[in-house]
């Protein structure tokens, strides 16, 4: 099973025709590959444009048109460029329907940690804190565990990126929704059982009465 492909495809299915979406660097970027042809998604690149398109072919890179990872990119018809204040005005103003990003930790309050490991690594938050607070739906897309250790916790132990902002967690094992009652396990990945997910998750899970399966095939 290609865990990342499974995650990216399931996240893509959560997006609706007409949505404006910001994809984080890494795994979240792959979500763009799984958007159905008849679904029109506008991708926002927080460094300054709407209408982010696929990376150009080798040899056709344009270094004046890069994505938020600083890599050559492209803009699709119907897009536009803007400065960073406008870009984050769009983000904070609720004009981005969904943001998809990775996490080091996420907890049952919907808290997210992904910008700092004290004493070890401090890359900075970049645009993540604004995106998580501003986007209407925050989807964490990540591999379920880190070297076998749970990343979905009772309480994040790393410095937070944002408090109580995560709505959905999508891993290769599960789709988990953050609700006021706690984390609800709504779907199981292609190779996972409820017991597998429970074992790989520190936080308590409420099992949805309508538990479904997801995967690359359906």
């Amino acid at each position: 099973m290609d865990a990342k492909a499974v995650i990216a495809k399931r996240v893509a299915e959560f997006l609706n025709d007409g949505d404006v979406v910001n994809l984080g660097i890494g795994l979240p970027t792959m979500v763009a590959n799984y958007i159905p042809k008849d679904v029109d998604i506008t991708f926002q690149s927080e460094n300054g444009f709407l209408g982010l398109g696929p990376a150009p072919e080798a040899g056709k890179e344009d270094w004046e048109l890069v994505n938020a990872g600083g890599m050559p990119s492209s803009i699709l018809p119907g897009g536009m460029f803007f400065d960073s204040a406008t870009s984050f005005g769009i983000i904070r103003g609720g004009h981005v329907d969904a943001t998809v990003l990775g996490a080091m930790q996420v907890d049952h309050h919907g808290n997210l940690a992904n910008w700092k490991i004290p004493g070890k690594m401090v890359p900075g938050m970049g645009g993540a804190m604004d995106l998580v607070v501003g986007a209407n739906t925050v989807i964490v897309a990540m591999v379920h565990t880190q070297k076998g250790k749970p990343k979905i916790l009772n309480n994040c132990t790393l410095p937070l990126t944002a408090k109580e902002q995560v709505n959905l967690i999508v891993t290769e094992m599960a789709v988990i929704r953050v609700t006021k009652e706690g984390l609800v396990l709504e779907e199981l990945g292609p190779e996972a059982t409820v017991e597998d997910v429970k074992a790989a998750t520190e936080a308590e899970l409420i099992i949805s009465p309508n538990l479904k399966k997801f995967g690359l095939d359906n």
Partner: protein
Amino acid sequence: MINKIISINEAADKVKDGMTIMVGGFLANGTPEDLIDALVVKNVKNLTLICNDTGFPDRGVGKMVVAKQFKKMIASHVGTNPETANQMNSGETEVCLVPQGSLAEKVRCGGTGLGGFYTPTGIGTEVEEGKEKKVIDGKEYILELPLRADVALLRAKIVDKKGNMIFTKSCKNFNPLMAMAADVVIVQADKIVEVGEIDPEDVMSSGIFVDYIVGGDK
């Protein structure tokens, strides 16, 4: 009309030891590389940097980081330049991480005469430490204050002799914001044209903000 065109060395001389500088660009995209190179050669020291990120060791403002020219850096992301973390860990430099949207808005604030703004970004995180918080209409916000610099170093694609600027594609980012927020503004132009050659509908940032123009030979 006042002549704003100066040599790259004359421009570098505007930056003195201990000053605060703003540098346009996002991961070196839209950064005035020639001005950075001249400042590395001049070896001006103890500067405070305001920039989206600290670039790469060999690209953008990162070259000045490698040359140890900053006593303090204010940025949203420093993960692409390991030298920043080295100097931070050794205590040689102070790094102040600011969410990207707040950083852009703080610069805009400094350039537009506002005293500060309330943002939801950073609530419940380390970012709120030491800052005033306020509940407005039932929602919690952090007070963020303006940023200004002694000198702003910008990069534009086309600049007329009054300093009117056209940025290209994703190279706008912080450039037009910083144009308004520094006492002395220097723009590195790819191409310099006569006043009137740029249609007023195409100007992206006004020459009234610009003190000096360098380059024009790209």
